[in-house]
């Protein structure tokens, strides 16, 4: 391709219908920019979504797109990927779509390691249905369906993914362009299910729910941007250490005890679980990556003819034995 595509080439003519100021706009920009960065071809790129605000996404990307039904995008995308493994398939979902009604499909997609990039826009609320608490809402969330505050324990997308056998888990913040592009590029390059949790600000129903760590003014102290093989440093000489007594991560002064600072290892599943639960700072970037055979590769490898027709129906139609009935004779 001589003329490199830009983010604009991936924008459709459709009027965008998200609320003004919605975090989805920033995510859309990061995605289209990433598609341009990685040299994606529009005809072999597909966005599949379920239902919810996030799921409007495919209408706004100039690629193939399928806006499906609530929670089922991973299942539809799995069938699509099996039918054509060469496609670059992205699934866009939300906390309600992916972790409530569609959690079963998400779990099985993750354990199978289907080659899909799954972007879960987490805003801890149901937006499209007007603000009910979601499976990721914190205890005490007041909403039209929980006027006195919610009392169910929320699910952690990261723990859900890792517990389901995810081979890639990363995090980004809607408005953090640099972090998002890094994470999206890494997700795109991963062979298998790349699951990305994006903290998305719903300005109408759950504004600033993530402000404690997304506020740019204090981001250096509240976000831990992970890089494989690099020490976990953030803010003003702060580092992360493993506390062997409490089996948890803790913040230390990196200048005082430089040797105690953990070095990020993307392939360490136990570390990944600890990082997911780290609350301040909040871990960002690629938290876990463990390459493994993709489902579609295994599927084609196990198929006797890689889904091609190498024999004719007539080779099978006679079965193990057949007999003839001649003219004028009935069956014995």
């Amino acid at each position, binding site marked *: 391709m001589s003329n490199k595509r830009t983010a604009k080439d991936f924008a459709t003519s459709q009027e965008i219908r998200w609320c003004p100021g919605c975090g989805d706009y920033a995510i859309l920009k990061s995605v289209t920019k990433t598609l341009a960065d990685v040299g994606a071809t529009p005809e072999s790129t597909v966005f599949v979504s379920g239902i919810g605000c996030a799921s409007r996404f495919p209408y706004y990307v100039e690629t193939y797109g399928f806006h499906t039904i609530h929670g089922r995008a991973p299942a539809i995308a799995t*069938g699509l990927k*099996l039918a054509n493994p060469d496609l670059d398939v992205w699934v866009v979902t939300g906390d309600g779509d992916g972790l409530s009604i569609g959690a079963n499909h998400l779990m099985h997609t993750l354990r199978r390691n289907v080659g899909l990039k799954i972007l879960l826009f987490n805003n801890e609320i149901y937006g499209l249905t007007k603000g009910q608490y979601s499976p990721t809402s914190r205890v005490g969330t007041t909403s039209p369906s929980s006027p006195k505050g919610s009392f169910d324990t929320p699910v952690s997308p990261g723990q859900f993914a890792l517990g389901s056998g995810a081979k890639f888990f990363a995090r980004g913040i809607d408005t953090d362009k640099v972090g998002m592009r890094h994470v999206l590029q890494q997700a795109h390059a991963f062979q298998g299910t790349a699951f990305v949790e994006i903290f998305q600000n719903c300005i109408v129903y759950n504004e600033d729910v993530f402000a404690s760590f997304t506020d740019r003014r204090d981001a250096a102290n509240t976000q831990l941007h992970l890089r494989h093989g690099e020490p976990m440093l953030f803010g003003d000489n702060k580092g992360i250490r493993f506390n062997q007594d409490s089996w948890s991560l803790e913040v230390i002064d990196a200048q005082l005890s430089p040797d105690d600072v953990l070095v990020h290892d993307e392939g360490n599943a136990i570390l990944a679980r600890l990082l997911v639960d780290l609350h301040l700072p909040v871990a960002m970037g690629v938290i876990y990556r463990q390459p493994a055979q993709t489902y579609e590769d295994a*599927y084609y490898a196990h198929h006797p003819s890689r889904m091609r*027709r190498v*024999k004719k129906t007539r080779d099978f139609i006679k079965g*193990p*034995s057949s007999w003839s*009935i001649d003219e004028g004779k009935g069956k014995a």
Partner: protein
Amino acid sequence: MNKNKDVDSIVIRLAGDSGDGIQLMGSQFAVSTALSGADFATFPDYPAEIRAPVGTTFGVSAYQINLGGGPITTAGDAPDVLVAFNPAALKVSLPLLHRGALVIINNDGFTPRNLAKAGYDTDPRQSGALNDFQVVEADISHLNLEAVREFGLSKSEGSRCKNFYALGVLLWMFDRELAPVETWIKRRLADNATLRDANIKALHAGHAYGETAELAASLSQISLPSAALEPGEYRSITGAEALALGIAAAGELADRSVLFCSYPITPASPLLHRLSRLGELGVGTFQAEDEIAAICAAIGASYGGMIGITSSSGPGIALKTEAMGLAVSAELPLVIVNWQRGGPSTGLPTKTEQSDLYQAVYGRNADTPLPVLSASTSGECFEVAIEAVRIALRHMTPVILLVDGYLSNAAEPWRIPDLSGFERIETNPVPESDSSPQQRAFTRDPGSYGRPWVTPGMPGLMHRIGGLEKDIDTGHISYDPPNHEQMTVLRAAKVASVAEFVPEQKIELGPDEGELLIVSWGSTYGPVYQAAQRTGASFLHLRHLNPLPKNLASIISRFDKVLVPEMNAGQLVTLLRDKLCVEPISFSKVSGQPFLIRDLVEKIESISGEAS
């Protein structure tokens, strides 16, 4: 076996070693025949030698039981069911069976040593020697010993109970009462309480195993008279096999690969099993995490350019309903196979019904029509599968194919078709135009209303589809009220247009006008055909249920009365009343059992009697 007899008598042959206690049991059964009345009768079949070598073919002893209420047929009747306790018993008994008989194999007896003794070079369970039969494999010896362990019998005493274990399995499969057998055991073993209780336990344990394992039996006891078989090459085939081959053939005719996505459910699973062995025909199977994922993956496959097919039974179909609506909205091809069973809810998983007709024709939210067709015999599943795929691809719509548990298992002689006689399956071309890709993807054929099958990967045609209502021309999202009306009309017209492409309905038997017309559909074909033939009534059998054949109204108008026998509470009657404004007489049967010819004949004669 008399292929035309009604299903009221079943001949079961238990065969094993004389050392297995078969001979003893056989003689005991024989002695008791007089006492047990007509409930069951037995036919001992001993080897000449009193102590023949174990495991050899000449050491096989067997006994046959006729479970049935009617007069006992002769011992010469071919068994409908064989229970083979070892390879030798299988070898000796196989030639006695007719094609399609049920063969229950005790896996525990199939040791390499026993196979060699019986003269088998290859294990008949794997060699294809049993392909003409319905085969159920179970570890009967082992399961039986576990069941009677509590009685502290010796191993040989315990093993002898396995005949009753096997009988328990059979009684479950054929819906027979345990009580007469239990009574017989009590009387026979009155002086040995431990053996008596152990045998009764084995009988019940076998029955419970049949239920837990959801074993189902369908014997093709009712089929066409031999004179009706046209000359040609035949094989024995079950509905699941025929449907699998039909799906593969449809892929070949359309020159597309097939992705079959399903979730295990009784009695639909045999199709998944069959298709998983047809990979070389460009068929792939995907066992999904649930029913919804199965249909969604099939939709994804269709979106990606393979023929997406899913299959289930009523409860699973209910779960798939929302996704069917998506395929209707997105105008994607899809075939949904429903192996109907008795309900509501879990109902009777192993018993046959035709009670999902409403669900298929009417059972979706909003105005969401789709074509519905059905298969009448195991063999016909082949061409109906091809027709379902043809309709799906031509009209770009999901299609429901109604079959049932009976067809899944029932084997019948099938004339092997010549595939060159089938037309290729064509798809609608992408129009060459300056319009937007979105518009080109939704430019519909004026006759079938099918759109081109534009799939991701095709350059220059990127577009978006989904479940939101779209503009009838541009294909973009549209909430415009008049447009929704137009789209609703278009979706109905598309399904109605199927009738323009299928052959007109034919009357299969009898005059084309007169007093009584029998109208049926699905797997009741065999008995209804027979009953119509015996009474001389006119008879037609529907394949297409939505839309109904164009000329059906005119055929029906030429008769005074219409009789609809069906295995539900009158669903086709409702459909005919709704679509054609006629008032048929309903003859419904919902016992989970196929129609008996004599019941149908009686009904037909009573109607004719009223008229004259």
